[in-house]
């Protein structure tokens, strides 16, 4: 298991762009939106929580199709499925690797982008907390979508169509935490619901993903 995590991280680092691309995309979203919306500080402050969450979500989506597709193409997935590791564990570890490579950098970069979007001071802490709690769910849900489409020739677009609706609850609660936090309101309820969704997804979805991969390898 640990060996698989080390291998996936090493692959992401060596392939180049593993860390960088998602982050660069996130940065671009934060730059493009003010250019489109206009520079008024009040408007930006109002939409900043939503834009930051949508940007993180899309950046996460970008690298999803590589979670299993590369291993499928070179035969590693067959070999992993015949190894002593349970496939559920393989899925969980690969989701964790995806989060470390994509989700975690987004969490750390988000406050910097918050400055660009004039996020109110009170919101920075909640931005970090909500992304840290929410992005693991994005990786796990995303790997479920990747598992469903792993055998398909051009699964990338289909995967986005399948995964984005599944992201809706996480997005709503995550952005709500930041929005309320920025306005100085209580964030307990959405934060608890966000954490609940993440916990549920991390606990249960690897089983569904492993089932989908078994079907696709058949």
């Amino acid at each position, binding site marked *: 298991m*640990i*060996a*698989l995590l*080390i*291998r996936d991280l*090493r*692959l992401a680092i*060596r*392939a180049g762009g593993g860390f960088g691309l998602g982050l660069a995309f996130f940065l671009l979203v934060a730059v493009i939106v003010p250019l489109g919306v206009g520079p008024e500080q009040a408007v930006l402050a109002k939409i900043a929580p939503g834009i930051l969450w949508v940007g993180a979500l899309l950046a996460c989506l970008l690298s999803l199709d590589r979670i299993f597709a590369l*291993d499928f*193409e*070179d*035969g*590693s997935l*067959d*070999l*992993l*499925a*015949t*190894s*002593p*590791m349970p496939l559920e564990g393989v899925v969980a570890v690969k989701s964790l690797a995806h989060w470390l490579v994509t989700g975690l950098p987004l969490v750390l970069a988000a406050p910097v982008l918050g400055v660009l979007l004039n996020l109110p001071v009170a919101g920075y802490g909640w931005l970090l907390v909500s992304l840290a709690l929410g992005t693991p769910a994005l990786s796990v849900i995303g790997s479920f979508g990747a598992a469903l489409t792993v055998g398909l020739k051009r699964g990338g677009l289909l995967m986005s169509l399948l995964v984005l609706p599944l992201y809706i609850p996480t997005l709503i609660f995550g952005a709500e935490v930041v929005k309320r936090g920025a306005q100085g309101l209580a964030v307990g309820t959405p934060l608890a619901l966000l954490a609940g969704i993440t916990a549920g997804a991390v606990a249960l979805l690897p089983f569904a993903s492993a089932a989908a991969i078994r079907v696709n*390898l*058949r």
Partner: protein
Amino acid sequence: MELRVTDLAVARAGVPVLEGVSFRLLPGRALVLRGPNGIGKTTLLRTLAGLQPALSGRVEAGEDAIAYAAHADGVKATLTVAENLGFWARAFGTRGVGAALAAMNLEALADRRAANLSAGQRRRLGLARLLVTGRPIWVMDEPTISLDAASVALFGAVVGRHLAQGGAALIATHIDLGIAAEVLDLAPFKARAPGLGGRIGAFDEAFG
């Protein structure tokens, strides 16, 4: 550890391709599968490896006894030869890749990235994986593709040593590896159409 296959029927994409396949593979023995392209060698091997369910029949082998080597090697281009092999060794819970590297004559290449290997060298790396699985029954699908004559002989010797240590090998190949092996021709087991007495597949069961 013995592999016993009884009256096995396998299907590709829901369509039966082989039926009534039975054989026993004893420790120390090798069995070579022959048959024309498309007869279902790969499907049979994937079924034995547990990657797809059998249509009917039984496959009996010990728990975690089978090591499967497919057409694709599962070699990661950005990792070195030693890293590639080391990962599989840890995944299968064995230690040390030195013996496997030496056996497949990869020692000089250990620190080279797999991207810079030739096709034959990659293949040797893929086959070295079998050695680090620590499993007794090797199931191999065309293992000698892109190997030169010297490498085929080297690999034949590796399989020979594995058999001598009580392992077993099931090989789909058309090349003589230079080891004593029984040959099983799959042509007689080709699935017949249901109208001619063949069994019906899961695909069209009850669609008659």
